[in-house]
């Protein structure tokens, strides 16, 4: 790193990554975008940004594969290399924040996969000390669920949920990655009580799903990009473990606030109590 580099340390899910840049404007963007997730703790990983890339946006698919010991992350608007042995990497992009978010999400998905966690295309929120996940295809109601949440519910994300294993189950952490709500989650965490796959209907109803169906739906919604058999095997094992430990249900809901009564009742009846999780576990 050169002497002119400035660093913003961003901690999501208890994993701290130093983002270094020589560009003052980009540094300000980092501070604004990840406000609430900035950390003064010693970073585990480091990404150095070179902002000379020309392409600003891209509809290309992400490609993530190994190049020797390094991971190579590529899309039309960015190219990044990250060495898991040193924890360091370099990113070539321009100052587009969407590229930045994508690179961070991919890096977290790689780190989490090794540690038995994952990123899930789901909204999540804390209610009465436990977290609830709401997953489903686009339009199923993830953002709607967060909009309908009562005042005592803490939003973790309306788009990308961050999950890590704990001794007795899993914990969900807040992320700065926002969806339609355009509002980052709170930087806190709670043990996961349940994962609901959303469907909108004329009534509020919770139905059981088989373990196999749970894994099938879970795998379809996990954010994972790496073309790597060992990591995919690990991820599949994690998905099976998650489904064995966390109740997976289908939540058919009519979009008004009463759906949260259903969620609270489920938690009380299912006795989801798990040990507390510190915010920066």
């Amino acid at each position, binding site marked *: 790193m050169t002497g002119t580099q400035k660093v913003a340390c961003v901690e999501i899910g208890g994993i701290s990554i130093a983002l270094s840049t020589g560009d003052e404007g980009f540094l300000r963007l980092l501070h604004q975008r990840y406000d609430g997730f900035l950390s003064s703790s010693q970073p585990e990983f480091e990404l150095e940004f070179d902002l000379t890339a020309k392409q600003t946006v891209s509809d290309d698919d992400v490609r993530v594969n190994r190049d020797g010991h390094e991971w190579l992350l590529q899309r039309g608007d960015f190219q990044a290399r990250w060495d898991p042995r040193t924890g360091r990497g370099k990113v070539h992009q321009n100052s587009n924040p969407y590229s930045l978010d994508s690179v961070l999400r991919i890096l977290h998905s790689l780190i989490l996969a090794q540690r038995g966690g994952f990123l899930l295309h789901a909204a999540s929120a804390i209610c009465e000390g436990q977290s609830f996940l709401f997953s489903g295809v686009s339009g199923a109601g993830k953002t709607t669920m967060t909009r309908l949440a009562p005042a005592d519910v803490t939003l973790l994300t309306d788009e990308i949920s961050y999950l890590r294993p704990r001794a007795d189950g899993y914990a969900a952490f807040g992320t700065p990655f926002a969806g339609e709500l355009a509002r980052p989650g709170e930087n806190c965490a709670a043990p996961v009580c349940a994962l609901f796959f959303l469907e909108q209907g004329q009534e509020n109803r919770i139905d059981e799903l088989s373990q*196999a169906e749970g*894994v099938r739906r879970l*795998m379809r919604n996990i954010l994972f990009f790496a073309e790597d058999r060992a990591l995919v095997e690990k991820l599949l094992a994690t998905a099976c473990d998650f489904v064995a430990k966390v109740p997976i249900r289908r939540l058919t809901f009519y979009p008004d606030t009463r759906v949260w009564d259903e969620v609270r009742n489920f938690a009380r009846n299912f006795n989801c109590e798990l040990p507390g999780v510190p915010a920066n576990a």
Partner: protein
Amino acid sequence: MPEGSIYITRSSAIAARALAGEMMVMNSANSTFFTLNEVATAIFQAADGRTPLQQIVRDTICEQFDVDPEQALTDAEQFVAELSSHGILLVSSEPLSAEASR
């Protein structure tokens, strides 16, 4: 080698795990995910690259499940063609190694 035999083996790029009687299969090359029913799972598990598909159907499928042999072979060939198109199974007219690179 019986004439017209086809041999099947699992791709080395996949991860698989059995759960509640179903096989979950994911292709690490393109992240496609499949769940196989009991019959498909039996074929998938028997795909050792050395046993002809006809023999797998006769000795495994028809033995374990109450199915018409001719229909079972037709269904097995369709299933193999589909998984082959997704890079899950590899198909050859000659014996293959137990797990082959795509």
